[in-house]
């Protein structure tokens, strides 16, 4: 009885789904989906690697310091970094005194100790990076109705984090001629910028970097590629300051487990030895 009901129920589900398949297949055959410009001209991130990649990854302190400089002098005008505190900058190789000085270069919201009114004050190491806008509405108003996202987790919040960021920052271009020919209705409205690494090809961020925009303290030449790479490395660190510790701990754990696995194997072999079928004499 159960089997009979089962067969009927099974045939019910099967017919419903095969009917849907038939309708879907018919539509697919008769009305082929139209190719879109976003699909045809979107590019995967460039092939670029960072010192923190892979199981032996390490941060390059000097690269992170350069990236911090790019963030501070360029990106911070529009993007916050609210999960990172100034004290965290010690991980970039700065001394306590340097971090104190770096924090003081930022202005953070504060309270006037005499009147209790909202005011601003220089940052101290325990402060977090301030947001450039008072609220989302102000952020939208200043950016053609788009909100510049907080960058604290940006490399974890996109596929291929660092490589995507690098590609986006170096990926602004003119629309290719064959694209204009193929998709005449595709356009980049004013206030948006064409970038083939952005999913819908138009984004509200103006190209933020230009040659020589920052003057690196260590004398490195500030090309767009160099700055993009450095700021991407810095943001990989910002998204996961514990990355190096994670990899180091990982190797210690794996080493121990390999040893334990070998031990467990021999223990098992020894326990089972008396039970192995002996060859008949």
């Amino acid at each position, binding site marked *: 009885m*159960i*089997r009979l009901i*089962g*067969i009927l*129920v*099974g*045939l019910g*589900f*099967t*017919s*419903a*789904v*095969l*009917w*849907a*398949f038939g*309708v*879907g*297949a018919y539509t*697919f055959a008769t009305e082929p*989906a139209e190719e879109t410009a976003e699909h045809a001209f979107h590019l995967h991130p460039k092939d670029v690697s960072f010192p923190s990649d892979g*199981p032996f990854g390490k941060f390059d302190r000097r690269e992170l310091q350069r990236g911090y400089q790019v963030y501070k002098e360029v990106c911070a005008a529009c993007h916050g970094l609210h*999960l990172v505190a100034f004290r*965290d900058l010690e991980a970039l190789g700065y001394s306590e005194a340097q971090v104190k000085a770096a924090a003081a270069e930022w202005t953070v919201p504060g309270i006037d100790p005499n009147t209790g009114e909202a005011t601003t004050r220089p940052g101290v190491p325990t402060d977090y990076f301030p947001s450039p806008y008072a609220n989302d509405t102000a952020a939208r108003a200043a950016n053609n109705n788009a909100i510049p*996202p907080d960058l*604290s*987790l940006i490399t*974890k*919040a*996109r*596929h291929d*984090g660092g490589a995507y960021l690098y590609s986006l920052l170096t990926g602004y271009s003119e629309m290719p001629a064959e694209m204009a020919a193929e998709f005449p209705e595709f356009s980049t409205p004013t206030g948006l910028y064409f970038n083939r690494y952005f*999913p819908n090809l138009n984004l509200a961020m103006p190209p933020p970097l230009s040659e020589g925009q920052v003057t690196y303290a260590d004398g490195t030449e500030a090309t767009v590629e160099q700055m993009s790479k450095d700021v991407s490395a810095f943001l990989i660190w910002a*998204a*996961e300051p*514990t990355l190096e*510790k*994670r*990899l180091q*701990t*990982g*190797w210690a*754990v*794996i080493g121990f*487990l*390999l040893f*334990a*696995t070998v031990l*467990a*194997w021999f*223990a*098992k072999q020894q*326990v*089972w030895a*008396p*039970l*192995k*079928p*002996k060859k*008949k004499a």
Partner: protein
Amino acid sequence: MSFPWAKPYEPKAPLMRYLDEKLPLPRLVFNAIGAGYPVPRNLSYMWNFGVLAGFCLVLQIVTGIILAMHYAPNAAVAFNSTEHIMRDVNWGWMLRYAHANGASAFFVVIYLHIFRGFFYGSYKPPREMVWLLGVVIFLLLMATAFMGYVLPWGQMSFWGAKVITGLFGAIPLVGEPLQIWLLGGFAPDNAALNRFFSLHYLLPFVIVGAVILHIWALHIPGSSNPTGVEVKTESDTVPFHPYFTAKDGFGLAVFLLLYCTMLFFLPNALGHPDNYIPANPMATPAHIVPEWYFWPFYAILRAFTVDFILPAKLWGVLAMFASILVWFFLPWLDKSPVRSGHYRPLFRKFFVVLVIDMGFLFWLGGAAAEEPYVMMSQIATAYYFLHFLVILPIISMIERPDPLPFSITEAVLGSDDDKAVLATTPAS
């Protein structure tokens, strides 16, 4: 419980004798997973996954309780509190990655455990109750993991919760009020997050209870084995300890190697990047997908795209639930008296097709909801239901199984004669 030749518990130390009189807990352990529990000697590594699942449960509870000391279940701060765990709590990053990847490891282990059951006919009498409890555990596990994924309150947390609770809206008449009641509002918000946290903390302990029943029910007939032939004599079995504690120990070590490789070197490989974006009810992600372990069922849900007597959405919801509930009926759908797939030539072929079909459903559940993926998931869904509800019952009626070995001992030693048996019976 157990076989007549099971080793009796005879404590020698005075303390153990005293304990045995007052609270015979050591006796329980001895009889359940010690030398007092005889198990078939031929269990393969496919029998490791139950113990591994138990390990995963403990791991999730331990890491979860510590996470809960630092996590704040409030929509305004939940996202930042998980980042606080990642950045400021000592070893917090390791705890969180251990818990998130622990959930994935748990499902890997559980799926292997379930498919072991499919192949070796573990659901057949006398172990139906063990199987039924197992399916209950799986449902509880899915509920727990679903609610856990909501807690970090990222984009996928929010939209996943919205889509899944939205399924209840497909139920005729009561659907919408039910959905609002479940969420405590029209969309997931603080009320939903709070109750999900409460339940996410509770359900693992309900699972512990169900696991105890599962093992209790198992210990009445004892474990099955790769031949599916029941235990006949003492030479068919060995004591659980030390034989299977040693074998499970090795299995656990290998499991930990794989799990720790994920945890320390690819901790976000199985997660979705969008969950590192704080929940935003105003911005719908391009592709809303649940965690990988739900993909087969998500593929089935989305395969019903066209109304057919009933609305398509209702078909999808019914099919998704039915795709798991059908496992409850397996003991009565597959009536073949032979358990093990090793001796069922026809069954074995369809089992391979089922595994491939499940592989497809896994892949398609994570793929975008567009052609040709939808058509492929429709075919895979059709086979899924045909397999369990039509093919299995028919095979079990028409199949001619291969000859079975006389006993487990014969299967292991190639002979059941006394000398071979004596030479290899564990000294006890």
